[in-house]
């Protein structure tokens, strides 16, 4: 078999800067790397010396796509360090915000980054001419997620007033009603989305791996929960350093991470594989109608899992609105710190489980910070899948293989700038 080389400099339609490098000689893979070439930002150092009440605002800026997710992990870590237990209403509103971000992020990924591959175009722009109804629907649905966050926290990119202890501004009942109304109005667009994605056939790829996601009683965990793995154990967020270990690979500015197996997956597919029984009815029904039975072992089905999660978050968001509206007469008060110590928080963000960990000194200033980012956790797993795919596609044209690899990387919805923003590399 002839050899070939694939070299994709700055893969498109992903967040951040990554290269795909494959070198096959005499049918043997000599080199295969997903290079992470994002410029590091040193957040762990930037946080040193800052007051606890700045942490959420600073770490939201790790990522524009999952700013609400970073804010959640940050305030959960801070509350753990500050001895704050938020009230139930605060948790409901936080969950509603997470639903909004998850819908927006998944829709952006599915329609704008993934769908062009299935229409054989290089971006969503040509589709505006050939399939205007699809593009208009995509824009409406993307706006849905953004609007929910804008009504409740001013912006989706870098939310305002989402703080340890509560919200700087509590929404008015009519604002929650408006969120509920725009959710209701979006139902036909979501139904059409399900129909569209039913027609897109995901490439086949099977490889057994470990899945890691949060697990919480009585719900499909997003906000927070205990660390669960498809290989067993469930332990609290504070144990994250015992559950996973990071290792340095020289071609990646973000460290690779492993749990029990050599690599593991986080994100929509991992969450679905671990928590599918807790999906809300519509989401569960569509999963069944698609003929899919968890665990989903094909990484391309991360796209499908995102679709299912959009429906789940939609249903959950309406439920959160109703619960909040039912609490008439509730007056929101921010809770204040009761101590300064060390705390860790875990939250499910669109791309998987995210950990923040802060240590505070006696003045409430950060002396040590750590973050474990979903994309960093997925990197080793993506490379393992790339190996399997290259083997499976042996004999096909290099161009076709390249396209398959790009689609595979894209299916993980990597957020490379996130993954690189907290790196602590130790060369051995």
């Amino acid at each position, binding site marked *: 078999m002839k050899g070939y080389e694939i070299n994709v400099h*700055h893969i*498109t*339609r*992903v*967040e*951040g*800067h990554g290269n795909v490098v494959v070198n096959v000689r005499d049918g043997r893979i000599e080199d295969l790397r997903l290079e992470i070439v994002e*410029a*590091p*930002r*040193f957040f*762990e*150092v*930037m946080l*040193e010396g*800052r*007051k606890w009440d*700045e942490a959420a*605002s*600073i770490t939201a*800026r*790790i*990522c*524009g*796509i999952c700013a609400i997710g970073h804010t959640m992990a940050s305030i959960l870590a801070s509350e753990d360090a500050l001895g704050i237990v938020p009230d139930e209403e605060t948790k409901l509103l936080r969950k509603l915000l997470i639903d909004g971000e998850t819908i927006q992020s998944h829709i*952006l990924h599915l329609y*704008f*980054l993934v769908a*062009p591959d299935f229409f054989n175009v*290089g*971006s*969503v*722009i040509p589709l*505006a001419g050939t399939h205007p109804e699809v*593009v*208009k629907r995509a*824009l409406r649905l*993307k*706006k849905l997620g*953004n609007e929910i966050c804008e009504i409740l926290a*001013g*912006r989706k*990119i*870098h939310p*305002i*007033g989402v*703080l340890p202890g509560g*919200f*700087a*501004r509590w929404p008015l009942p009519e604002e929650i009603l408006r969120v509920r109304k725009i959710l209701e109005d979006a139902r036909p667009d979501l139904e059409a989305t399900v129909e569209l994605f039913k027609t897109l056939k995901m490439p086949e790829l099977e490889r057994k791996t470990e899945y890691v996601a949060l697990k919480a009683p009585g719900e499909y965990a997003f906000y927070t929960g205990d660390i669960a793995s498809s290989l067993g154990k469930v332990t609290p967020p504070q144990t994250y350093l015992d559950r996973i270990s990071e290792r*340095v690979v*020289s071609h990646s*500015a973000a460290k690779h991470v492993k749990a029990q197996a050599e690599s593991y997956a986080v994100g929509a597919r991992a969450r679905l594989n671990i928590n599918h029984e807790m999906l809300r009815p519509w989401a569960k029904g569509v999963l069944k109608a698609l003929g899919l039975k968890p665990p989903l072992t094909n990484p391309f089905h991360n796209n499908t899992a995102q679709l299912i999660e959009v429906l789940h978050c939609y249903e959950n968001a309406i439920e959160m609105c109703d619960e909040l509206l039912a609490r008439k007469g509730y007056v929101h008060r921010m809770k204040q710190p009761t101590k300064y110590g060390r705390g860790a928080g875990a939250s499910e963000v669109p791309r998987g489980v995210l950990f923040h960990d802060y240590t505070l000194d006696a003045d409430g200033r950060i002396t040590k910070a750590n973050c474990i980012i979903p994309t960093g956790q997925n990197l080793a797993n993506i490379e393992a899948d790339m190996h399997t795919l290259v083997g499976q596609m042996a004999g096909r044209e290099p161009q076709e293989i390249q396209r398959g690899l790009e689609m595979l990387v894209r299916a993980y919805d990597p957020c490379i*700038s996130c993954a690189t*923003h907290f*790196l*602590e*590399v*130790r*060369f051995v």
Partner: protein
Amino acid sequence: MKPKLGVFSFTSCEGCQLTILNLEDQMLDLLGAVEIVNFREAIDDRRNDYDVAFVEGSITTPEEVEEVQAIRGRAKILVAIGACATIGGINALKNRHDLATTKQKVYGDGARHFPSEPTRRVRDVVPVDYEMHGCPIDKIELVRVTKSLLLGQIPLPSEHALCTECKQRVNVCLYDKGICCIGPIVRSGCGAICPAFGEACVACRGFLSHPNIASMVEILKSKGLSRAEVEDRLTQFNSLTPVDLSPYYLS
């Protein structure tokens, strides 16, 4: 012929280019008015024949210096978008630490593999025609600036303090709620969105050209903020515009 637009990203969270994608209501109009020829996050094309370049992010590596110089060479108009690009923003917090120590701490012996320079604004590296401030940039301003550029005009950034927009929005002043805010010395343009949602201004649009630092510090001191707490407020986004506090703390 439609003007050609390129969108480029350097050290940042990419939230400003996402704000472009968040123009859901105007997206189809925008695509009718300009041709997007380079936008890695959204499209496969990577053409270099752009007229206007929107540049997001701070410049923090030698590679980024070369890239932004090449973009400047090709673009007729270069617009720096967002706090990382216009004032250094959060990225500039890095410059408050000794870079050699930081690198040693983070990379150990491998520092040479990941070159990092002190954070710079885009205009510290190449000439910039317009700066769109904010973290992230504001959608309404983005549309307004884009329209102006299409009409061949370069708009002027705001030189009013944030307080003017707080009044326009009929926000209750945060000082009346017992919250300290540095809005009086900060450039507006965001519609005072943070105070409207209960949080003090973080100065993500930078300070006014002639901020009254003396009065601002006096107010913050009178509200009981320590020198370190005053410094926190002035440095979160604006470490590249250091304010010498020593004249106000002589005793």
